[in-house]
Protein backbone atom coordinates (compact mmCIF):
# COMPACT_ATOMS: atom_id res chain seq x y z
CA UNK A 1 0.00 0.00 0.00
CA UNK A 2 1.38 3.36 -0.98
CA UNK A 3 0.73 6.58 0.84
CA UNK A 4 -1.52 9.01 -0.97
CA UNK A 5 0.13 12.28 -1.96
CA UNK A 6 0.28 15.06 0.59
CA UNK A 7 2.33 18.08 1.47
CA UNK A 8 4.30 18.57 4.66
CA UNK A 9 4.51 21.80 6.57
CA UNK A 10 7.08 22.14 9.35
CA UNK A 11 6.23 24.79 11.91
CA UNK A 12 9.05 26.01 14.13
CA UNK A 13 6.81 26.95 17.04
CA UNK A 14 3.43 26.05 18.53
CA UNK A 15 2.04 29.37 17.32
CA UNK A 16 3.08 28.63 13.75
CA UNK A 17 1.54 25.17 13.97
CA UNK A 18 -1.80 26.56 15.13
CA UNK A 19 -1.73 29.19 12.37
CA UNK A 20 -1.08 26.45 9.82
CA UNK A 21 -4.21 24.58 10.90
CA UNK A 22 -6.25 27.71 10.39
CA UNK A 23 -5.01 28.12 6.82
CA UNK A 24 -5.51 24.51 5.82
CA UNK A 25 -8.81 22.96 6.74
CA UNK A 26 -7.91 19.33 5.99
CA UNK A 27 -4.48 19.45 7.69
CA UNK A 28 -3.65 16.96 10.44
CA UNK A 29 -0.80 16.97 12.98
CA UNK A 30 1.96 14.42 12.46
CA UNK A 31 3.80 13.28 15.59
CA UNK A 32 5.10 9.68 15.50
CA UNK A 33 2.88 8.82 12.57
CA UNK A 34 2.58 5.13 13.42
CA UNK A 35 -1.22 5.24 13.42
CA UNK A 36 -1.85 8.21 11.13
CA UNK A 37 0.22 6.86 8.24
CA UNK A 38 -1.49 3.46 8.49
CA UNK A 39 -4.92 5.12 8.31
CA UNK A 40 -3.71 7.09 5.29
CA UNK A 41 -2.34 3.99 3.59
CA UNK A 42 -5.68 2.29 4.12
CA UNK A 43 -7.37 5.39 2.63
CA UNK A 44 -9.46 5.90 5.77
CA UNK A 45 -8.43 9.55 5.86
CA UNK A 46 -6.94 11.74 3.13
CA UNK A 47 -5.47 14.92 4.54
CA UNK A 48 -3.91 17.15 1.86
CA UNK A 49 -1.37 18.49 4.29
CA UNK A 50 0.39 17.16 7.38
CA UNK A 51 1.76 19.50 10.01
CA UNK A 52 5.03 17.82 11.00
CA UNK A 53 5.71 18.55 14.66
CA UNK A 54 9.32 17.25 14.64
CA UNK A 55 10.75 20.76 15.00
CA UNK A 56 8.83 21.16 18.29
CA UNK A 57 10.68 18.19 19.81
CA UNK A 58 12.99 20.52 21.72
CA UNK A 59 10.01 22.12 23.43
CA UNK A 60 7.60 19.22 23.77
CA UNK A 61 9.69 16.10 24.43
CA UNK A 62 10.62 15.94 28.11
CA UNK A 63 9.94 14.17 31.37
CA UNK A 64 10.48 16.28 34.47
CA UNK A 65 9.48 16.47 38.09
CA UNK A 66 8.42 19.68 39.72
CA UNK A 67 6.18 20.60 42.65
CA UNK A 68 4.66 17.19 43.40
CA UNK A 69 4.01 16.73 39.72
CA UNK A 70 5.54 14.80 36.87
CA UNK A 71 5.22 16.63 33.58
CA UNK A 72 5.58 14.78 30.31
CA UNK A 73 5.68 16.62 26.99
CA UNK A 74 3.23 15.39 24.38
CA UNK A 75 5.99 14.58 21.87
CA UNK A 76 7.87 12.32 24.31
CA UNK A 77 8.26 8.93 22.68
CA UNK A 78 6.77 5.91 24.42
CA UNK A 79 10.15 4.17 24.53
CA UNK A 80 11.52 7.08 26.58
CA UNK A 81 8.62 6.86 29.01
CA UNK A 82 8.99 3.14 29.61
CA UNK A 83 12.76 3.50 30.16
CA UNK A 84 12.90 6.73 32.13
CA UNK A 85 14.15 6.11 35.70
CA UNK A 86 11.78 8.70 37.16
CA UNK A 87 8.73 7.07 35.54
CA UNK A 88 9.86 3.56 36.47
CA UNK A 89 10.38 4.62 40.08
CA UNK A 90 7.41 6.89 40.70
CA UNK A 91 4.85 5.76 38.10
CA UNK A 92 5.67 2.11 37.35
CA UNK A 93 2.23 1.41 35.94
CA UNK A 94 2.53 4.20 33.41
CA UNK A 95 5.80 2.60 32.30
CA UNK A 96 3.97 -0.74 32.05
CA UNK A 97 1.15 0.78 30.01
CA UNK A 98 3.60 2.46 27.64
CA UNK A 99 5.46 -0.82 27.29
CA UNK A 100 2.26 -2.66 26.37
CA UNK A 101 1.78 -0.50 23.26
CA UNK A 102 2.49 -2.31 19.97
CA UNK A 103 6.13 -3.30 19.32
CA UNK A 104 9.54 -1.89 20.27
CA UNK A 105 10.02 -0.54 16.75
CA UNK A 106 6.71 1.34 16.94
CA UNK A 107 7.42 2.67 20.43
CA UNK A 108 10.64 4.21 19.09
CA UNK A 109 8.47 6.46 16.90
CA UNK A 110 5.11 6.70 18.68
CA UNK A 111 4.56 9.56 21.12
CA UNK A 112 2.54 9.93 24.31
CA UNK A 113 0.37 12.64 22.75
CA UNK A 114 -0.26 10.43 19.76
CA UNK A 115 -1.20 7.49 21.95
CA UNK A 116 -3.64 9.59 23.97
CA UNK A 117 -5.14 11.03 20.77
CA UNK A 118 -5.33 7.64 19.06
CA UNK A 119 -8.35 7.58 16.78
CA UNK A 120 -11.13 5.22 17.78
CA UNK A 121 -11.06 1.87 16.07
CA UNK A 122 -13.67 -0.50 14.77
CA UNK A 123 -13.28 -3.75 12.88
CA UNK A 124 -15.51 -2.49 10.09
CA UNK A 125 -13.95 0.97 9.88
CA UNK A 126 -10.33 -0.19 9.94
CA UNK A 127 -10.60 -3.39 7.94
CA UNK A 128 -13.94 -2.91 6.13
CA UNK A 129 -12.36 -1.74 2.87
CA UNK A 130 -10.34 -4.93 2.66
CA UNK A 131 -13.32 -7.16 3.38
CA UNK A 132 -15.55 -5.26 0.98
CA UNK A 133 -18.36 -4.35 3.36
CA UNK A 134 -17.29 -0.69 3.33
CA UNK A 135 -17.40 -0.58 -0.47
CA UNK A 136 -21.03 -1.57 -0.36
CA UNK A 137 -21.95 1.19 2.08
CA UNK A 138 -19.46 3.37 3.98
CA UNK A 139 -19.99 3.47 7.74
CA UNK A 140 -20.76 6.47 9.93
CA UNK A 141 -17.12 7.01 10.81
CA UNK A 142 -16.31 7.28 7.10
CA UNK A 143 -19.08 9.85 6.76
CA UNK A 144 -21.57 7.26 5.54
CA UNK A 145 -25.02 6.44 6.86
CA UNK A 146 -24.80 2.95 8.33
CA UNK A 147 -23.16 1.30 11.33
CA UNK A 148 -21.99 -2.16 10.29
CA UNK A 149 -21.69 -3.22 13.94
CA UNK A 150 -25.42 -2.91 14.50
CA UNK A 151 -26.42 -3.02 10.84
CA UNK A 152 -28.65 -0.01 11.41
CA UNK A 153 -29.02 3.27 9.57
CA UNK A 154 -28.84 5.51 12.62
CA UNK A 155 -26.33 7.95 13.98
CA UNK A 156 -24.53 6.09 16.76
CA UNK A 157 -20.96 5.00 16.02
CA UNK A 158 -19.52 2.32 18.27
CA UNK A 159 -15.82 2.66 17.35
CA UNK A 160 -13.82 1.80 20.44
CA UNK A 161 -11.13 3.91 22.10
CA UNK A 162 -7.95 1.83 22.03
CA UNK A 163 -5.22 3.92 23.64
CA UNK A 164 -3.20 2.11 26.31
CA UNK A 165 -1.80 4.98 28.32
CA UNK A 166 -5.01 6.99 28.87
CA UNK A 167 -6.69 4.59 31.38
CA UNK A 168 -3.59 4.58 33.59
CA UNK A 169 -3.20 8.35 33.29
CA UNK A 170 -6.84 8.83 34.28
CA UNK A 171 -6.40 6.54 37.28
CA UNK A 172 -3.48 8.81 38.25
CA UNK A 173 -5.78 11.87 38.02
CA UNK A 174 -3.77 13.46 35.20
CA UNK A 175 -4.49 16.74 33.50
CA UNK A 176 -3.61 17.74 29.95
CA UNK A 177 -2.57 21.13 28.63
CA UNK A 178 -3.92 21.96 25.21
CA UNK A 179 -2.53 24.72 23.02
CA UNK A 180 -4.84 26.29 20.48
CA UNK A 181 -5.88 29.39 18.58
CA UNK A 182 -7.30 30.91 21.77
CA UNK A 183 -4.30 30.16 23.96
CA UNK A 184 -3.70 27.43 26.48
CA UNK A 185 -6.15 25.51 28.59
CA UNK A 186 -5.64 22.73 31.12
CA UNK A 187 -8.37 20.16 31.66
CA UNK A 188 -8.63 16.80 33.41
CA UNK A 189 -7.64 14.10 30.93
CA UNK A 190 -11.03 12.45 31.32
CA UNK A 191 -12.67 15.55 29.84
CA UNK A 192 -10.58 15.30 26.67
CA UNK A 193 -12.74 12.40 25.53
CA UNK A 194 -16.09 13.16 23.94
CA UNK A 195 -17.45 9.60 23.92
CA UNK A 196 -18.50 10.00 20.28
CA UNK A 197 -17.12 7.30 17.98
CA UNK A 198 -16.61 9.50 14.92
CA UNK A 199 -15.00 12.44 16.73
CA UNK A 200 -13.57 11.01 19.96
CA UNK A 201 -11.85 14.15 21.28
CA UNK A 202 -13.08 17.45 22.66
CA UNK A 203 -10.50 19.33 20.63
CA UNK A 204 -11.27 22.31 18.48
CA UNK A 205 -9.71 22.76 15.07
CA UNK A 206 -6.06 23.70 15.45
CA UNK A 207 -5.71 22.57 19.05
CA UNK A 208 -2.66 20.48 19.90
CA UNK A 209 -1.90 18.47 23.02
CA UNK A 210 1.07 20.08 24.74
CA UNK A 211 1.72 18.42 28.07
CA UNK A 212 0.43 15.79 30.47
CA UNK A 213 0.63 16.62 34.18
CA UNK A 214 0.58 13.71 36.56
CA UNK A 215 0.32 14.43 40.29
CA UNK A 216 2.67 12.23 42.28
CA UNK A 217 0.61 9.51 44.00
CA UNK A 218 -0.24 10.18 47.65
CA UNK A 219 1.40 7.99 50.21
CA UNK A 220 -0.34 4.67 50.44
CA UNK A 221 -2.01 4.83 47.02
CA UNK A 222 -1.56 1.68 45.03
CA UNK A 223 -2.11 0.95 41.38
CA UNK A 224 -2.64 -1.79 38.91
CA UNK A 225 -2.99 -2.04 35.14
CA UNK A 226 -4.13 -5.02 33.12
CA UNK A 227 -4.49 -5.28 29.37
CA UNK A 228 -6.08 -8.06 27.36
CA UNK A 229 -4.96 -8.59 23.78
CA UNK A 230 -5.22 -11.46 21.34
CA UNK A 231 -1.50 -11.51 20.53
CA UNK A 232 1.66 -9.90 21.86
CA UNK A 233 1.46 -6.95 19.49
CA UNK A 234 -2.15 -5.79 19.46
CA UNK A 235 -4.50 -3.03 20.46
CA UNK A 236 -6.22 -3.64 23.79
CA UNK A 237 -9.47 -5.61 23.61
CA UNK A 238 -10.17 -4.66 27.21
CA UNK A 239 -8.03 -2.90 29.78
CA UNK A 240 -8.43 -1.94 33.42
CA UNK A 241 -6.49 0.60 35.48
CA UNK A 242 -7.14 0.84 39.20
CA UNK A 243 -5.85 3.13 41.92
CA UNK A 244 -6.78 2.45 45.54
CA UNK A 245 -5.88 4.17 48.80
CA UNK A 246 -6.60 2.15 51.91
CA UNK A 247 -6.69 3.45 55.48
CA UNK A 248 -4.70 1.93 58.31
CA UNK A 249 -7.55 -0.49 59.03
CA UNK A 250 -7.49 -1.85 55.47
CA UNK A 251 -10.69 -0.06 54.46
CA UNK A 252 -10.74 1.71 51.10
CA UNK A 253 -10.72 5.49 51.39
CA UNK A 254 -10.35 6.46 47.78
CA UNK A 255 -10.62 4.45 44.58
CA UNK A 256 -10.50 5.00 40.85
CA UNK A 257 -11.46 2.28 38.43
CA UNK A 258 -10.94 3.08 34.77
CA UNK A 259 -11.92 0.85 31.87
CA UNK A 260 -10.31 1.14 28.45
CA UNK A 261 -11.22 -0.34 25.06
CA UNK A 262 -14.74 -1.06 26.31
CA UNK A 263 -16.51 2.02 24.99
CA UNK A 264 -16.08 5.07 22.78
CA UNK A 265 -13.91 6.65 25.49
CA UNK A 266 -11.99 5.45 28.54
CA UNK A 267 -14.29 5.93 31.51
CA UNK A 268 -14.42 5.70 35.30
CA UNK A 269 -16.86 3.23 36.82
CA UNK A 270 -18.11 5.58 39.52
CA UNK A 271 -20.71 3.18 40.88
CA UNK A 272 -17.98 0.62 41.57
CA UNK A 273 -15.68 3.27 43.07
CA UNK A 274 -18.43 4.40 45.44
CA UNK A 275 -19.22 0.82 46.37
CA UNK A 276 -15.59 0.11 47.15
CA UNK A 277 -15.26 3.11 49.47
CA UNK A 278 -15.57 2.17 53.12
CA UNK A 279 -15.27 -1.53 52.40
CA UNK A 280 -12.45 -4.03 52.47
CA UNK A 281 -11.34 -4.75 48.88
CA UNK A 282 -11.33 -8.54 49.30
CA UNK A 283 -15.00 -8.80 50.16
CA UNK A 284 -16.18 -6.20 47.63
CA UNK A 285 -14.48 -7.46 44.50
CA UNK A 286 -17.41 -9.62 43.26
CA UNK A 287 -19.78 -6.67 43.37
CA UNK A 288 -17.21 -4.38 41.75
CA UNK A 289 -16.83 -6.84 38.88
CA UNK A 290 -20.61 -6.83 38.37
CA UNK A 291 -20.76 -3.03 38.30
CA UNK A 292 -17.87 -2.87 35.81
CA UNK A 293 -19.58 -5.40 33.56
CA UNK A 294 -22.75 -3.36 33.61
CA UNK A 295 -20.97 -0.18 32.46
CA UNK A 296 -18.76 -1.72 29.76
CA UNK A 297 -19.85 -1.93 26.16
CA UNK A 298 -19.48 -5.47 24.84
CA UNK A 299 -20.23 -5.21 21.18
CA UNK A 300 -19.00 -6.83 18.00
CA UNK A 301 -16.56 -4.10 16.96
CA UNK A 302 -13.20 -5.86 17.36
CA UNK A 303 -11.84 -9.15 16.09
CA UNK A 304 -12.70 -10.98 19.31
CA UNK A 305 -16.25 -11.96 20.26
CA UNK A 306 -18.07 -9.90 22.92
CA UNK A 307 -18.57 -13.01 25.11
CA UNK A 308 -14.83 -13.50 25.40
CA UNK A 309 -14.25 -9.87 26.37
CA UNK A 310 -17.02 -10.17 28.96
CA UNK A 311 -15.35 -13.19 30.56
CA UNK A 312 -11.93 -11.58 30.39
CA UNK A 313 -13.09 -8.39 32.07
CA UNK A 314 -14.03 -10.38 35.18
CA UNK A 315 -10.50 -11.68 35.45
CA UNK A 316 -8.89 -8.32 34.69
CA UNK A 317 -10.89 -6.46 37.34
CA UNK A 318 -10.27 -9.14 39.98
CA UNK A 319 -6.53 -9.22 39.23
CA UNK A 320 -6.34 -5.44 39.33
CA UNK A 321 -8.07 -5.12 42.67
CA UNK A 322 -6.03 -7.94 44.18
CA UNK A 323 -2.81 -6.40 42.90
CA UNK A 324 -3.66 -2.86 43.97
CA UNK A 325 -4.55 -3.96 47.48
CA UNK A 326 -1.83 -6.52 48.06
CA UNK A 327 0.57 -5.71 50.86
CA UNK A 328 3.75 -6.10 48.84
CA UNK A 329 3.19 -3.22 46.51
CA UNK A 330 4.40 0.19 47.53
CA UNK A 331 3.29 2.78 45.01
CA UNK A 332 5.39 5.49 46.52
CA UNK A 333 8.80 3.90 46.46
CA UNK A 334 10.61 7.11 47.23
Amino acid at each position, binding site marked *: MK*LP*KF*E*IFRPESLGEAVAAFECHQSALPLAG*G*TDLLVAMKRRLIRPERLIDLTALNDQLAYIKEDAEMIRIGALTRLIEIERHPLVIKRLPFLAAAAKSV*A*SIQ*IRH*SATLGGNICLDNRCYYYNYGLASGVELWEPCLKRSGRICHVTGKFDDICYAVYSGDTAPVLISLDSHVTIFGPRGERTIPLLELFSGVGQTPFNLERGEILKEVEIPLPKNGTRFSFQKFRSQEVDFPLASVAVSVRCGADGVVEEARIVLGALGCAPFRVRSAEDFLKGRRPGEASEAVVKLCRREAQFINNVHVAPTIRRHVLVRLVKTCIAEATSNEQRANRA
Partner: protein
Amino acid sequence: MNKELIELKINGDSQEIAVPQHRTLLDLLREELGLMGSKDGCDVGECGACTVLLDGEPVLSCLTLAVRCRGREVLTIEGLAREGKPHPLQEAFVYEGGVQCGYCTPGFIMMAKSILDSNPDPSDEEIRAGLTGNLCRCTGYVKIIQAIKVAAEKIRLSPGRY
Protein backbone atom coordinates in the same frame (compact mmCIF):
# COMPACT_ATOMS: atom_id res chain seq x y z
CA MET B 1 4.50 16.55 -6.58
CA ASN B 2 6.51 18.23 -3.84
CA LYS B 3 10.07 16.99 -3.84
CA GLU B 4 12.60 17.85 -1.21
CA LEU B 5 16.37 17.59 -1.28
CA ILE B 6 17.56 15.73 1.79
CA GLU B 7 20.97 14.67 2.96
CA LEU B 8 21.27 11.48 4.91
CA LYS B 9 23.77 8.78 5.63
CA ILE B 10 22.83 5.33 4.39
CA ASN B 11 25.08 2.47 5.47
CA GLY B 12 27.94 4.86 6.05
CA ASP B 13 27.65 6.77 2.76
CA SER B 14 26.43 10.34 2.80
CA GLN B 15 23.87 10.85 0.06
CA GLU B 16 21.89 13.77 -1.24
CA ILE B 17 18.58 12.67 -2.67
CA ALA B 18 15.47 14.41 -3.92
CA VAL B 19 12.41 12.63 -2.49
CA PRO B 20 8.69 13.31 -2.70
CA GLN B 21 7.29 14.29 0.69
CA HIS B 22 4.91 11.34 0.80
CA ARG B 23 7.63 8.72 0.16
CA THR B 24 8.32 6.31 3.03
CA LEU B 25 11.88 5.41 3.96
CA LEU B 26 11.17 1.84 2.82
CA ASP B 27 10.14 2.96 -0.67
CA LEU B 28 13.15 5.25 -0.87
CA LEU B 29 15.49 2.38 0.02
CA ARG B 30 13.89 -0.21 -2.22
CA GLU B 31 12.69 1.72 -5.23
CA GLU B 32 15.08 4.62 -5.57
CA LEU B 33 18.31 3.30 -4.06
CA GLY B 34 17.89 -0.35 -5.04
CA LEU B 35 18.51 -1.57 -1.50
CA MET B 36 16.11 -4.49 -1.67
CA GLY B 37 17.18 -6.04 1.64
CA SER B 38 14.54 -4.35 3.78
CA LYS B 39 11.30 -6.10 2.98
CA ASP B 40 7.82 -4.81 2.35
CA GLY B 41 5.79 -7.27 4.42
CA CYS B 42 2.51 -5.93 5.75
CA ASP B 43 3.25 -2.24 5.10
CA VAL B 44 1.20 -1.24 8.15
CA GLY B 45 3.59 -1.88 11.04
CA GLU B 46 2.55 -5.36 12.10
CA CYS B 47 5.31 -7.67 10.81
CA GLY B 48 8.67 -5.92 11.38
CA ALA B 49 10.15 -7.10 8.05
CA CYS B 50 11.07 -3.50 7.14
CA THR B 51 12.97 -2.81 10.40
CA VAL B 52 16.06 -0.61 9.92
CA LEU B 53 18.22 1.23 12.41
CA LEU B 54 17.76 5.00 12.38
CA ASP B 55 20.56 6.63 14.39
CA GLY B 56 21.04 3.21 15.96
CA GLU B 57 17.40 2.82 17.00
CA PRO B 58 15.09 0.23 15.46
CA VAL B 59 12.21 1.76 13.51
CA LEU B 60 9.78 0.52 10.90
CA SER B 61 10.84 2.02 7.59
CA CYS B 62 7.32 1.49 6.17
CA LEU B 63 5.95 3.97 8.72
CA THR B 64 8.81 6.46 8.59
CA LEU B 65 8.66 9.29 6.08
CA ALA B 66 11.90 9.62 4.12
CA VAL B 67 11.95 13.41 4.53
CA ARG B 68 11.98 12.99 8.31
CA CYS B 69 15.36 11.21 8.06
CA ARG B 70 17.11 14.42 7.00
CA GLY B 71 20.58 14.53 8.52
CA ARG B 72 20.18 11.14 10.18
CA GLU B 73 21.95 7.85 9.78
CA VAL B 74 20.20 4.79 8.37
CA LEU B 75 21.60 1.29 8.69
CA THR B 76 20.03 -1.49 6.62
CA ILE B 77 20.89 -5.16 6.27
CA GLU B 78 23.15 -4.26 3.31
CA GLY B 79 25.38 -2.22 5.61
CA LEU B 80 26.19 -4.99 8.09
CA ALA B 81 28.92 -6.87 6.21
CA ARG B 82 32.49 -5.65 6.71
CA GLU B 83 35.20 -6.07 4.03
CA GLY B 84 33.10 -8.60 2.16
CA LYS B 85 32.60 -10.75 5.25
CA PRO B 86 29.11 -11.21 6.70
CA HIS B 87 28.27 -9.91 10.16
CA PRO B 88 28.25 -12.61 12.90
CA LEU B 89 24.45 -12.30 13.05
CA GLN B 90 24.16 -13.01 9.33
CA GLU B 91 26.51 -15.99 9.64
CA ALA B 92 24.73 -17.38 12.66
CA PHE B 93 21.30 -17.11 11.03
CA VAL B 94 22.59 -19.20 8.12
CA TYR B 95 24.49 -21.81 10.11
CA GLU B 96 21.92 -22.21 12.89
CA GLY B 97 18.98 -22.50 10.49
CA GLY B 98 17.38 -19.20 11.47
CA VAL B 99 16.48 -18.65 7.83
CA GLN B 100 13.88 -20.57 5.90
CA CYS B 101 12.02 -18.56 3.27
CA GLY B 102 14.13 -15.57 4.30
CA TYR B 103 11.54 -12.84 3.90
CA CYS B 104 11.50 -11.82 7.57
CA THR B 105 15.25 -12.31 8.04
CA PRO B 106 16.54 -8.76 7.35
CA GLY B 107 14.03 -7.37 9.85
CA PHE B 108 14.99 -9.97 12.45
CA ILE B 109 18.71 -9.36 12.00
CA MET B 110 18.39 -5.59 12.30
CA MET B 111 16.23 -5.97 15.41
CA ALA B 112 18.71 -8.52 16.81
CA LYS B 113 21.52 -6.05 16.20
CA SER B 114 19.69 -3.42 18.18
CA ILE B 115 19.16 -5.91 21.04
CA LEU B 116 22.85 -6.87 21.09
CA ASP B 117 24.00 -3.24 20.84
CA SER B 118 22.32 -2.45 24.14
CA ASN B 119 22.75 -5.84 25.80
CA PRO B 120 25.71 -7.96 24.64
CA ASP B 121 24.63 -11.03 26.63
CA PRO B 122 20.83 -11.30 26.51
CA SER B 123 18.90 -14.20 28.03
CA ASP B 124 16.35 -16.17 25.98
CA GLU B 125 13.62 -14.17 27.65
CA GLU B 126 15.23 -10.85 26.77
CA ILE B 127 15.69 -11.92 23.16
CA ARG B 128 12.05 -13.01 22.96
CA ALA B 129 10.87 -9.73 24.45
CA GLY B 130 13.01 -7.83 21.96
CA LEU B 131 11.60 -9.74 18.99
CA THR B 132 7.89 -9.29 19.74
CA GLY B 133 7.54 -6.88 16.83
CA ASN B 134 8.87 -9.32 14.24
CA LEU B 135 6.83 -12.10 12.65
CA CYS B 136 8.26 -15.29 11.17
CA ARG B 137 5.88 -17.83 9.67
CA CYS B 138 8.48 -20.56 8.93
CA THR B 139 11.00 -21.19 11.65
CA GLY B 140 8.93 -21.16 14.81
CA TYR B 141 11.47 -18.71 16.28
CA VAL B 142 13.53 -21.34 18.16
CA LYS B 143 16.37 -21.34 15.63
CA ILE B 144 16.30 -17.57 15.42
CA ILE B 145 16.80 -17.20 19.17
CA GLN B 146 19.57 -19.79 19.02
CA ALA B 147 21.26 -17.92 16.16
CA ILE B 148 21.18 -14.65 18.09
CA LYS B 149 22.80 -16.32 21.11
CA VAL B 150 25.55 -17.79 18.95
CA ALA B 151 26.16 -14.43 17.30
CA ALA B 152 26.17 -12.66 20.68
CA GLU B 153 28.95 -14.95 21.87
CA LYS B 154 31.04 -14.32 18.77
CA ILE B 155 30.60 -10.57 19.08
CA ARG B 156 31.56 -10.65 22.77
CA LEU B 157 34.78 -12.48 21.85
CA SER B 158 35.89 -9.68 19.54
CA PRO B 159 34.74 -6.49 21.25
CA GLY B 160 34.76 -3.26 19.27
CA ARG B 161 34.88 -5.03 15.95
CA TYR B 162 31.16 -5.10 15.09
